[in-house]
């Protein structure tokens, strides 16, 4: 088994699996990573097919530049949520699969007949100018020089176009730190909103990650203590989860009764204090604070 064959049979299944994974992944990031895998494998296939220049370009341009651009945009727009896999167009998925099967059959039938002889190989062609890169250069800069120049115009146009498309006019004056501070104080004066920083995430014996919310004195979660994207993806640990081990310990120490998770997070009320009153006051202060996350003006979001 030659190196070429080895590379093919090793990598081809990986590529197909990667491609299928790209289509099926629920998260865009996973799709991008699958695609990266396919592309790197493809680069190696190029190398096996006597195309060292394309091998390099594939890795540098595609995997290095284009896919990073994809990841960057995914970060900008897509990380918030998973894609729903419920199909909204009637019959779309069925037809797509049927057509895909038909297409692959036709393509295989057509392409399978395209080359009837064995491969000539590029050894001779590469040797003509002293190497693959030199041979490509001879073609690109002599025979296809006009096309090459046209692509330069295309790239310039694309760059300018991307800038034009993503450029936004500033419609309101930029708010600097000073004005923000003034606004906070004004908000405190007018609505009583807390001017200080939001609460920090919770720190417990078992958890200190950013997705661990702080608990309020009544045992409920202070939602402002975790960042908004995590909140929106409902990745916040629940009080039950956080308090379950402690409740278990209490139960073990008590020894005579089973731990009751439903009441585990509830602290015994102190004498003379109403739990409901205390909780209501805290909830109110949370509400005023929660609105702070929304005062970011639109142009600062992305």
């Amino acid at each position: 088994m030659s190196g070429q064959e080895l590379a093919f049979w090793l990598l081809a299944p990986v590529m197909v699996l990667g491609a299928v994974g790209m289509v099926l992944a629920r998260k865009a990031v996973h799709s991008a990573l699958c695609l990266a895998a396919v592309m790197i494998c493809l680069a190696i296939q190029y190398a096996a097919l006597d195309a060292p220049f394309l091998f390099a370009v594939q890795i540098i341009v595609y995997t290095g530049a284009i896919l990073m651009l994809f990841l960057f945009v995914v970060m900008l727009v897509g990380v918030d949520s998973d894609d729903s896999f419920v199909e909204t167009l009637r019959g779309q998925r069925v037809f797509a699969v049927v057509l895909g099967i038909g297409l692959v059959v036709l393509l295989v039938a057509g392409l399978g007949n395209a080359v009837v002889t064995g491969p000539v190989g590029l050894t001779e062609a590469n040797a003509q100018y002293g190497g693959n890169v030199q041979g490509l250069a001879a073609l690109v800069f002599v025979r296809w020089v006009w096309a090459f120049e046209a692509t330069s115009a295309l790239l310039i146009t694309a760059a300018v176009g991307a800038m034009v498309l993503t450029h936004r006019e500033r419609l309101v004056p930029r708010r600097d730190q000073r004005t923000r501070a003034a606004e906070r104080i004004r908000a405190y004066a007018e609505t009583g909103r807390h001017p200080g920083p939001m609460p920090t995430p919770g720190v417990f014996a078992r958890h200190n990650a950013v997705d661990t919310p702080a608990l309020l004195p009544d045992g409920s979660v202070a939602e402002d203590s975790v960042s908004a994207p995590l909140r929106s993806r409902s990745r916040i640990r629940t009080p039950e989860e956080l308090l379950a081990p402690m409740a278990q310990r209490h139960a073990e120490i008590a020894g005579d009764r089973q731990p009751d998770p439903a009441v585990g997070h509830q602290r015994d009320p102190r004498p003379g204090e109403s739990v409901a009153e205390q909780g209501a006051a805290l909830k109110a202060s949370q509400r005023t604070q929660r609105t702070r996350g929304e005062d970011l003006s639109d142009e600062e979001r992305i």
Partner: protein
Amino acid sequence: MTPLEVVTPTAASGLFGLAWLLIALPLAGALVLLLAGRFADAWGHLLGTLMPIGSFVLGVVLFVDLLGREEGARAVGVPLYRFIETGGWRIDAGLLVDQLSILFVLLITGVGSLIHVYSIGYMAYDPRRRRFFAYLNLFVAAMLILVLADNYLVLFVGWEGVGLASYLLIGFWQHKPTAATAAKKAFVVNRVGDMGMVLAIMLMLATFGSSAFVDVDAGAGEMGGTVATVMGLLLLLGACGKSAQVPLQSWLLDAMEGPTPVSALIHAATMVTAGVYLVVRANAVFTHTEVASTAVVVVGTVTLLFGAWIGCAKDDIKKVLAGSTMSQIGYMLLAAGIGPAGYAFAIFHLLTHGFFKANMFLGAGSVMHAMDDDVEMRRYGALRRALPITFATFGLGYLAIIGFPFLSGYYSKDHIIEAAFEHNVVVGVLAMVGAGVTAFYMTRLMLMTFLGRRRWAEGVHPHEAPAVMTVPLVVLAAASVVGGLVLNNWIEGWLAPAVRAEAHEASLLHFTPVAAVTLLLVAGGVALAWVLFGRRGVPQTAPSTRSPFVLAGRRDLYGDAFNEAVFMRPGQQLVRVLGRADETLVGGGWSATGDVLAGLSQVGRRLQNGFVRSYALTMVAGVGMVAVVLVLGRLA
């Protein structure tokens, strides 16, 4: 038949090289006035008046030059440029200044200048005066092209040009629906005549290979009798359209909707006489066809009586004059149809008629000016005191037209009547009767307008027009008086070479029995009018009558009714049937196709659902189909 002597024009030299300026001056005036816009409002009428005066001066200079030449050298050709060059056809545009055309030039520019001057006063309060003068200049230019052309095709350019100017000027007060309709009517009726012209010119091109006067004259001897007859009849059709002769007479009476100077210039003095000019100019054709010549005589005679009849029945001063114009042009055409003996008389009468009819039309304009643009003669009366100058000049024109001895109409009309008697007694008698009727209706007009009791409408205060309007009246009245005396002995000899006629010895005191009878008839007509309208007085509203003659006259002898019944209604019916056929058969078929396609599209457009993924599905399906076809193609 003996071939006619062909007059070959001599080459232009000296001032004749500038003959094109005759046309260019008014044309330039029209262009400047039309293009300069409101900028020219202040001085436009002055420029517009100067242009024909300039042409007139140049025309006089050329005329004097011609007078000084010997007879054989009086036709001057001025080649301008090659008009059309296509395939084997070569048509040159050039001018021909000869004895005939120079007289027309003088008439057009002379009378035209006077009418321009008159219009300065008449149109003084019209906000669109500049445009009016632009159109008048355009008309003068086109009319000069018509008479100066050395080629029937170039003549046709002027022919259409005057038609356009006439259309624009009749409909000048386009805010009046009647004026707009009248303009359209004139245009449409003229198209019928123009069709005849076009066909005649095509026939000339086919027969002679050229439409130049020289070539037509030279080739006329060789063409067959039928061709000559057809050509002559087609030319006559053209002449009928332009000169408002029966059967294409109906537009002239309506054309009186235009401003009065227009009626004077276009519909009395110049344009309507173009038909006479055409027949005289095409004398080579008519000489060779007895049928066409006779047709000209018949048309002339019929129109002569027709116009006179209408003139008797109308109460609208301008329409009476229009009927009179038709009648007088009938005289001219009659003379032109008689042949070489009558050509000079036709032109003679044309000139004198140009003077006295323009004079009377302008006088009528002056009267209307005084009477707040009222044209109804039954609301005139006793204007001789209020409008003394108008009355005097109009009176001279009146005496001229009825043929009062030694005034211009006396000479020109008598010649025609005598020539008609020599040609055919019946025609002569009819022409003589026409003269009597003319005297009757013109006397009626005078009595109703200037004499009798005043029957003015409430709040009308007649006043004499300003000098700018009365001076042209005086000049034209003088021309009406002396025109006959001056021209009588001279014009026949002058025109003889141009129209290939032999000059008779003419005398100012020439008096024949025919003239005597004519005078008697005229006197009878005047007396009858006096009895009917002078002594009895005129009621303020037209009396109802059962007399079929009067009713027919009031309704233009049913010319419109005839056209309506014979051409318009069947034409409308045809169009309606064709239209319905088009709607149901052709249109229905196509709209059914369209409806079916539209229905299918309503279904098909649902595919355009806005989802990019559906489009991708469709594309992949398409790719699959193409691939299937390719694969099957390989297998086959």
